[in-house]
């Protein structure tokens, strides 16, 4: 069955412009969505797919306006249902490369069930979650990723909700490619999108995205030049997990506890540092990594947490169809209708 790797396009050389539709972009000036769009358009030529075979599906939200701006097939659907609709698209035509653009409200609040079920089934979709930790389009209510205590239009005294950790949910539900990136790191964002496009199975990318209007600066400690090195750790396959302005901090796995060490303190060295293995067969390290953002003091990981291959739902489904056809022969009207206990009236 269709597999993106097989479909690599050699004959067409696209540029970013080929992926820009002629629709006026209508996000607020300064919104992080602009960068995500730009990076998607820039990396699309690397997706190895003819643009008529690419479909962007979305729900409702600022982020979900995304498909209008991509010059591919696009479906701006209803709130929360993008994953389910995309599953239908992919199952109906497995040759398509199906992307989902969604928000933290769209995919984790109303759409949470479709999301975890798509992950569970390992449907071959690429889900890009624009996480701004707020409901943008409805003007500023808290979302399931908003931090506890957050004051918003619908929580004037602060929320009493604990937030979801999207990476943990996706991985726990069965996503086979799990990554995080940021609107403000264009190259990294492009890389994550391109890598997701090459993965066969459910690829999930959390993009930390700034909503300038209703949650400005939610990620500035991660995205601003001066604070980024101390607060962000770039996960790179096969490389030790080093961060800090002076590249002197490393993550060591002390039993099951990740701890920060100084590799130049004379006591520890680079050899003590956890070497990231994105192909880890045991998901426990991925789990530990996913929890960095829940633990005070640890840096926020960006990059590919883990990827692995297992049969996809759409792949297996179509294999099963082929198997049954091979066994029973392609169905015909005759076989269908005259198969059971029939009798003649003459």
């Amino acid at each position, binding site marked *: 069955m269709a597999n993106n790797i097989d479909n690599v396009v050699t004959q067409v050389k696209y540029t970013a412009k080929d992926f820009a539709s002629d629709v006026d972009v209508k996000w607020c000036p300064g919104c992080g969505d602009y960068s995500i769009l730009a990076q998607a358009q820039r990396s699309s030529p690397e997706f190895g797919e003819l643009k008529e075979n690419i479909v962007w599906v979305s729900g409702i939200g600022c982020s979900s306006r995304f498909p209008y701006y991509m010059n*591919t097939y696009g*479906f701006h659907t209803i709130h929360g249902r993008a994953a389910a609709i995309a599953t*239908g698209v992919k199952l*109906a035509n497995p040759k398509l490369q199906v992307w989902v653009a969604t928000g933290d409200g769209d995919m984790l609040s109303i759409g949470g069930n479709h999301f975890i079920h798509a992950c569970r089934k390992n449907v071959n979709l690429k889900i890009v979650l624009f996480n701004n930790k707020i409901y943008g389009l409805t003007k500023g209510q808290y979302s399931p990723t908003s931090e506890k205590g957050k004051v918003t239009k619908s929580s004037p005294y602060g929320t009493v909700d604990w937030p979801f950790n999207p990476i943990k949910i996706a991985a726990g539900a069965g996503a086979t490619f799990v990554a995080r990136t940021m609107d403000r790191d264009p190259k990294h964002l492009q890389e994550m999108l391109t890598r997701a496009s090459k993965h066969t199975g459910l690829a999930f990318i959390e993009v930390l995205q700034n909503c300038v209007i209703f949650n400005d600066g939610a990620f500035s400690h991660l995205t601003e030049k001066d604070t980024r090195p101390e607060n962000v750790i770039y996960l790179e396959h096969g490389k030790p997990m080093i961060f800090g302005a002076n590249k002197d901090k490393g993550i060591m796995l002390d039993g099951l506890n990740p701890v920060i060490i100084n590799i130049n303190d004379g006591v520890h060295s680079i050899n003590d540092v956890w070497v990231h293995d994105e192909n880890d067969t045991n998901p426990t390290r991925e789990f530990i990594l996913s929890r960095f953002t829940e633990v005070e003091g640890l840096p926020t990981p960006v990059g590919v947490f883990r990827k692995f291959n297992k049969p996809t739902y759409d792949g297996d489904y179509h294999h099963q169809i082929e198997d*049954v056809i091979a*066994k*029973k022969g392609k169905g015909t009207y005759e076989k269908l209708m005259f198969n059971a206990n029939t009798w003649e009236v003459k």
Partner: protein
Amino acid sequence: MAKSIQVIDDVTIRFAGDSGDGMQLTGSQFTDTVAAMGNDLSTLPDFPAEIRAPAGSLAGVSGFQLHFSSSDIQTPGDAPDVLVAMNPAALKVNLKDLRPGATIIVNTGAFDTKNLRLANYNTNPLEDNSLSNYNVIQLDLSKLTLTTLEDLPLSIKEKEKCKNFFALGLLYWMYNRPLDLTMKWLETKFAKKPDIMEANKRVLQAGYNYGDTTEIFTTRFDVKPAQLPKGTYRNVSGNEAIALGFVSASLKSGLNLFLGSYPITPASEILQELSKYKNYGVITFQAEDEIAGIASAIGASFAGNLAITTTSGPGLSLKLEAMGLAVMTELPLVVVDVQRGGPSTGLPTKTEQADLLQAMFGRHGEAPVVILAAQSPADCFYCAYEASKIALEHMVPVVLLSDGYLAFGSEPLNIPKFDELKEINVKFETNPEGFYPYKRDENFVRPWAIPGTPGLEHRIGGLEKKDVYGNISYEPDNHEIMVHNRLNKVLKVADFIPEVEVDGEAEGELVVVTWGSTFGAVKEAIRNVRENGKKVSHVHLRYLNPFPKNFGNVISKFKNILVPELNLGQLSLLMRNQFNCDVIQFNKVKGQPFKVAEIENKINEVLGGTNGK
């Protein structure tokens, strides 16, 4: 001893017992045999809502009714002529339905104190004379079965399980039907369990022989083959027929069939049936819920499949928001609602026709869809086919209404030849020149340009869109234009559907208007009252939105319009609204179909002293 054979016109038999007694199986074996003999027939099973309530309890009684005839029939019969009651609870639950003087075959082996208590009998009805109006035949089926199987190396429990085949064999004898079809079925079914096969075959034969040899029965009956139109027939339930109709539409249109669904009584069998047809390329996506069911179907429709979703009332309620998206994006989609007793969880295994207005008006905003309703189990085949055709050719969501009565009931389908099925014309747009996603043809139909088509990349969605161009538009006049476009597209379907036919005179005192499964009872009732010299016409609506073009005119020719419905008057409302006509409502909301007699009485009441002439 030779017994006389009396030829009768039709007979209604009901098998009733515990959920574990195999009554559905017994009934369907009898049905298959009767069908193969060329009778017309109609069946209706009646399950408890519980899977298998405690043995012997009233809640656990499962029934199967079969009406077969030498002439054309439309219902499974009002009042059984024969009841097979496997235990006291089965007797208790079913007695009130029998016609006076009916034959009751009881399994006395189950009439012990415990079972009598479970059935809330204070005294044993077999002993207290309470059945004196019936022809009661007492048999200890359990014991007769065990005796028959004495020498077989099976457990008592396994042996006892065969007792339904004793009853079946006896019935075959009584109605002069051959055993061979059931024998063959047993051979295939239990090919790997020869002991069980042997046991059942023996018991079946024993039941037959018992009729032949004992003194209990003096007469046998015969029901001659019916004069049905020529053709190859198969017996279908409504749910099966729907599945077959969709696969046929898929074959005819050349599109893959995609079903997004979530199990729910009484619609689950459509999903189950379709999941067997993998070699027809059918995709059955059992979704996480009803919303994902319809959502995936909308996705599949966008991608170019013949996309459907199937459910019952509670599921339809959940699908309404997504149906609005299909309305807005003008994608073909068939939504099957097998109606059951409501509201809320209601009466899941009972029938009702109370979702019509929901299908019509259940969405926010002005969101019209096409609505069809099937009239009989076999008609479900054609309705599924036509719903697909309309959806695909008009780029419109179509609701197909069935109900629990049709879903589980069965009747013979005269299988059409492939060539006899209407063409389904689907044209995917491929030409980029002058392509606009919302440019309409003369029938208000927009082009279907599916992903994968070079040069036609475009975006659609649930926000209001600019006429012709399809991009987002908040412009006031455009919104009004689009609201009317969507409506007109639906109304235009009236040009493509058959006009209603009047069964009877074209004008007069009374016309009875039906929709959905009430068709059968009304058809039979009208035949009966006509036999009594009354004049009544009948108009049946398969298309509920839009109405067939001549409908208003046709009914305007009658002094009285009687509309029997299994709801509080939903079609009546639509008719009053559209035609400003007086309607006599006849409503029943008991989770049960109309009885023929109920309709007859109502017709007589409406006609008053007159004969409708």
